[in-house]
């Protein structure tokens, strides 16, 4: 279990990194935190010819209050920000509590000390927490390539199984999380075999209530039940415009489990078991989010 040989390049700026990607073409792979890539290389299931180490791109690191487009209450997280930095950030706790709640579920502290936000989003593992969270929060992901910068809504970024809208010569530079409307409550929970394992199922919810207690905005996303993060649209429909009663949660959870997903089976969970966990977990997460919304 030793990686195959590769060439190693350590650019000192994003533009330099991109020019390396352009020059090397297919076979060059950006190395962010490496916590998914390096084990795959150790198994010799990934054989990149060139690794472009983004570790010294300090310009991609850090958490900034305020979004890119003057959204003063938003949040911007640089791609090379480590999970542990996000986990400890007071700004994240205050402005994106859903993200803060999800962070401890990502693997173990030793992995979070190396893994990066941009790396996880670009990797797009369907069992990963961050893509589902970003989808629930309607985040915008910022990319840079030889043609310059562009931003993509997160729902358009994930295109399928380990697939994204990121071009081979582009890098994720950061992700922008808009402020949530007042009266919004969020919640995250997942079930895994052991602490830190890949989720069997995970659920993110963001519910907004009006003064009368009617749900005005519902965002329910799921992980580990499809090709990528799944937006539970019929579940959301079952919530919007309704008072958030136990019946509403049950209907939404049932919709999520029965209609929004086509879960894969593996040795740890059959499709039927994933549906059942989705049902139970969605109910729980919605209850928590609604309670928080009511208190918000």
């Amino acid at each position, binding site marked *: 279990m030793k990686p195959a040989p590769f060439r190693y390049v350590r650019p000192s700026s994003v533009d330099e990194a991109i020019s390396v990607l352009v020059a090397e073409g297919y076979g060059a792979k950006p*190395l962010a935190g*490496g916590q998914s890539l*390096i084990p795959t290389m150790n198994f010799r299931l990934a054989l990149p010819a060139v690794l472009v180490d983004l570790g010294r791109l300090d310009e991609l690191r850090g958490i900034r209050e305020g979004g890119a487009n003057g959204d003063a209450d938003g949040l911007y997280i640089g791609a090379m920000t480590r999970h*542990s930095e996000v986990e400890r950030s007071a700004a994240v706790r205050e402005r994106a509590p859903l993200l803060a709640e999800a962070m401890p579920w990502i693997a173990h502290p*030793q992995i979070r*000390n*190396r893994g990066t936000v941009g790396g996880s989003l670009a990797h797009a593992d369907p069992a990963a927490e961050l893509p589902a969270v970003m989808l629930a929060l309607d985040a915008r992901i910022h990319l840079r390539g030889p043609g310059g910068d562009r931003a993509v809504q997160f729902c358009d970024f994930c295109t399928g199984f380990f697939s994204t809208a990121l071009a081979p010569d582009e890098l994720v530079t950061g992700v922008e999380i808009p402020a949530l409307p007042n009266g919004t409550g969020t919640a995250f929970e997942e079930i895994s075999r052991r602490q830190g394992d890949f989720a069997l199922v995970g659920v993110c919810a963001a519910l907004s209530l009006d003064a009368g207690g009617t749900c005005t905005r519902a965002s329910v996303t799921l992980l580990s039940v499809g090709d990528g993060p799944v937006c539970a649209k019929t579940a959301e429909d079952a919530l919007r415009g309704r008072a958030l009663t136990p019946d509403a949660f049950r209907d939404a959870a049932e919709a999520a489990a029965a209609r929004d997903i086509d879960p894969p089976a593996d040795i740890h969970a059959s499709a039927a078991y994933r549906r059942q966990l989705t049902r139970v977990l969605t109910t729980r997460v919605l209850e928590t989010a609604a309670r928080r919304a009511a208190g918000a």
Partner: protein
Amino acid sequence: MGETLTIRLTVNGNEYDRSVEPRLLLSDFLRHDLHLTGTHVGCEHGVCGSCTVLVNGESVRSCLMFAVQADGAEISTVEGLATPADGSGIPHPEDADLHPIQAAFRESHGLQCGFCTPGILMTLVPFLEENPDPDEEQIREALSGHLCRCTGYQNIVKAVRLAAGRMRS
């Protein structure tokens, strides 16, 4: 051997300049290039935690890092935990030279075969700095990134409590 690169880094306070292949894992670099074999390798896919070391004060899996990535870093391994020996080679009868976590592991029988132990110790050093008074749940969560096949973890938890108490006072 393919292309090599020169790296400079500090391990347990000592500076090293070495020429390495880019693909050399940090775990192998420490063990086989620097002969610091106290860091153990159990799975090479980031699950077992045996190879945990500190990179700039943070616990990381050294099997999930290339040595070239550690260029310029300060690394701590289990060999650096105890107070440097006085050269006599005679172990202190009361284990006074051991780090309080090491001593607590011995007193609590927190190790059996001892293979996973160095990695666990390296996780606990920053953990107890950040959480000087952890409860059992926090301790078990902190340990959950390590596999131990011998102890059933019970005496490791006991050792962490003992060490935490001593380090607080």
